[in-house]
């Protein structure tokens, strides 16, 4: 479904990704793990069009998407739930969610999608008139996820959705992500909670200093020595 082939990405003159390749198949959960500064966010931002790659290609459903603007990429069915939530702070919860349905196809069905999102996160319905900046961290993350789903995407990319949340809420977020996959949405997941992500992932990639150093299925990576030492503290 998504194919990233040999991309190099730069911030000005500083290279952040070297020859990175990655594949996500339909209805898979693929985890991307790595230390701080490894380039995980950079990779997602390259896929969603915020950072065009200097070389290599990105293909989605067989179509080249590198070089397209972010607004065209979301129209094709990729939703990016960015690091740090990035809500529109002076808009209400319901307006933030509506913005998620901005692409034409999704706009036509936004009432229906909104009901589904409120079913998934009932607290958001209670908070629908409240300004996003006044929400708690957990509520903000739910708005970010709900907003990402409003475009009715085929592929969802989550960048550290559990960051800064209490353990109970983290478990809830992982449960929701699994539920999305069961509804046929493909997931590319960047996470700090390495154990939990590997447990739900079909496959995973490990990124170090801008390069993919390891890939495999989730369960077997959990047993890998390098992972145990570097990310699980065993």
């Amino acid at each position, binding site marked *: 479904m998504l194919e990233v082939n040999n991309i190099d990405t730069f911030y000005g003159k500083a290279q952040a990704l070297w020859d990175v390749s990655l594949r996500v198949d339909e209805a898979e959960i693929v985890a991307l793990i790595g230390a701080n500064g490894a380039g995980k966010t950079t990779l997602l931002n390259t896929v969603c069009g915020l950072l065009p790659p200097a070389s290599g290609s990105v293909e989605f459903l067989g179509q080249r998407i590198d070089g397209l*603007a972010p*607004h065209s990429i979301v129209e094709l069915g990729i939703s*990016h739930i960015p690091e740090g939530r990035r809500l529109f702070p*002076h808009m209400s919860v319901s307006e933030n969610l509506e913005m998620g349905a901005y692409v034409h196809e999704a706009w036509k069905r936004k009432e229906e999608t909104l009901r589904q999102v409120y079913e998934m996160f009932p607290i958001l319905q209670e908070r629908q008139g409240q300004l996003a900046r006044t929400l708690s961290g957990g509520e903000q993350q739910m708005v970010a996820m709900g907003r990402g789903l409003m475009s009715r995407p085929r592929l969802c990319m989550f960048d550290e959705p559990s960051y800064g949340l209490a353990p109970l809420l983290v478990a809830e977020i992982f449960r929701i992500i699994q539920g999305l996959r069961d509804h046929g949405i493909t997931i590319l997941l960047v996470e700090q909670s390495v154990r939990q992500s590997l447990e739900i992932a079909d496959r995973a990639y490990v990124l170090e200093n801008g390069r993919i150093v390891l890939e495999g299925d989730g369960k077997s990576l959990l047993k890998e020595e390098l992972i145990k030492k570097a990310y699980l503290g065993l």
Partner: protein
Amino acid sequence: MVTFLNVVIAGLLLGGLYALIAMGLSLQYGVARVLNISHGEFIMLGGLTTWTLYTAFDINPLVSLVIVGPTTFILGFIIHRTLFKRLLSSSTSPGIFESSSMLASFGLLFMIQNIASIAWGPEIRGYSYLAVPVHLAGAVFSANRLVTLGFATVIGLAFYLFVARTRLGKAIRAAAQDPATAGLMGVNINNVLALCFGFGAAMAGIAGMLISMCYPVHVVMGLEYTIIAIIVVVLGGLGSIPGSFIGGFVLGIIGSVVTYIDPGLSLVAYYLIFILLLLVRPTGIMGK
């Protein structure tokens, strides 16, 4: 009591124009991040075009709205598409874009002014339209100024509803708050910024049309209005469209009170308010 009411009404009449001008700048500065020093030049273009249409072609000034509005909109849209879009993509940070776009808008000011002075010359132009007296609260105002207030208010409220309720209006607000994330939602940022710049220019053009009905117009009239617009935008809170609307009326009433005391002092009072505001409450009355 009667004089107090008169002063307030005169302030509202002035305030409607200020509100319109400031809302236009608020779109260009609050959303497109261009502190457009040439804003007043679009007012001048609107005013002088209306004068020409009325005196040479006998076109009713209110009818010229449908000429002046779209023309200034297209002009603003094209200027953003060619000049500011390019500056934006070559700027490495928002701060760099804010300073380079302001300098570029200074350049625009001189270009527009020079072209206009070739077209219209340095003379002060004026005409008389709807200059019939209307009695209001014991005082006399001319009908054209009341029409001005009506137009400014209707345009202001309509635009507020547009931004608050419609899909495109919400995209404009989202782009003002976080352009990159608005792009992730599917908003074509370059289009929205150019639209905002165009809307801002159209509001200036229409304000110029309204001004020409009440006051004389000339090629170098623009800068004073630009400064007033900047003061109102800061007064109302940067990026807040309702703030600019209300701020316009607040400054209009202040201006009217000061003019009642001493007509020569109004600009001085505006600057004083501006400086005090920057010192005491830089986020403005409706600032976030």
